[in-house]
């Protein structure tokens, strides 16, 4: 499936520049407007984009109970993206980043080994995580320096800086592939994935974050049956849930 160049030129130029991630105070384009513009997509591309957002954004992943289901879903989407290798790499890289963060959290929570990593992680680094479980950066620190920093921030309990670090790494991956695409489906996909991150960050609010943290602490203390109401996702692309909210994955 190829992109119609004229259609995608109009679509890409109709999307506002997202700017720098952490300096934005408000969204350059709302969820409603974005969906309106994305109606220019070919139906097959719209379906692919929806799948891709569902597996990369936390709002989509939150509906799965088991990590293995997320992995199955990610593998299916990677297969569906066979005509778009850069998007395949992006989804794969995103899942690998998520696997690394999950491994850091599991170790912090006292897990003594990687265990059955095939059921909760995916990608190239699973073997290294398994064989270097006691290493702060799982033996990957020499070419992923952010991992050592993530370990340090997680140990110190600086969750906001940790979130910034992870989002910076994800945006770096998006920017890397974004430079290779100007006016095609990949460019639109990368824009939407970036928008999801920007949307989440701009919605962060200190007071809300404090309330959320308190609610999560209560949830952790009362156990899984506790009746705690957390904000729900507001739209299809809205990525309300932060990876910090999950304790083990």
């Amino acid at each position, binding site marked *: 499936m190829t992109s119609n160049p004229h259609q995608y*030129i*109009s679509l890409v*130029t109709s*999307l506002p520049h997202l700017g720098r991630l952490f300096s934005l105070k408000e969204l350059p384009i709302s969820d409603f407007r974005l969906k309106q513009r994305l109606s220019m997509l070919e139906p097959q591309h719209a379906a692919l984009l929806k799948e891709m957002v569902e597996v990369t954004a936390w709002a989509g992943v939150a509906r799965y109970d088991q990590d293995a289901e997320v992995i199955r879903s990610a593998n299916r989407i990677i297969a569906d993206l066979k005509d778009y290798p850069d998007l395949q790499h992006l989804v794969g890289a995103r899942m690998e980043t998520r696997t690394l963060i999950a491994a850091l959290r599991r170790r912090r929570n006292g897990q003594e080994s990687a265990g059955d990593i095939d059921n909760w992680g995916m990608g190239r680094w699973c073997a290294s995580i398994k064989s270097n479980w006691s290493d702060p950066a799982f033996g990957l620190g020499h070419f992923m320096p952010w991992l050592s920093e993530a370990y340090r921030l997680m140990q110190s309990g600086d969750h906001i800086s940790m979130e910034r670090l992870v989002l910076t790494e994800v945006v770096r991956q998006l920017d890397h592939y974004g430079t290779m695409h100007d006016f095609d489906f990949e460019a639109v996909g990368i824009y939407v994935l970036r928008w999801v991150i920007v949307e989440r960050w701009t919605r962060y609010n200190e007071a809300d974050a404090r309330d959320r943290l308190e609610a999560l602490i209560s949830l952790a203390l009362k156990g899984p049956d506790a009746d705690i109401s957390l904000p729900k996702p507001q739209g299809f692309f809205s990525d309300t849930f932060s990876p910090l909210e999950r304790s083990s994955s």
Partner: protein
Amino acid sequence: MNEFVVALGWFGLYAPVALGAIGSAWGCALGGSAAIGAMLDSDGGYGRFIGVSLMPSSQVIYGIVIMFSLQQSQVDAANGAALFGIGVLSGFTMLFTGIRQGEVLASAIHASKAKPEIFGISLAPAAVLEGFSVFALVFALVLAGSIPS
């Protein structure tokens, strides 16, 4: 054999117009698509977006000028090959520069929407491509003067 050369001559005579028109149409469509998209995301400056998107129109005009300069009282075996060579090659130049100009204009419109202050400088690559079209035009005119009639 002579008939074949004459046929090539006529082919070369019309090639700059036909290929130039294709290049202009393609380039304007690319630039125009970007301008239309940019207008959806802008509150003003529509005229400049549409204005620059029409830049690739010049290729078909150059093609028409080349065709008139190549026009002979009679196309025959003596001038057929020259008309073919000059006409087809200059036509392909117009085709290629027209399409590429449309692409760089689309990028310029997209970039200047995010950063309006670069609007002028972002047109420099399109202007350079226009320069290459003008080179092809001028030297086609020069060579047209030495075709045996």
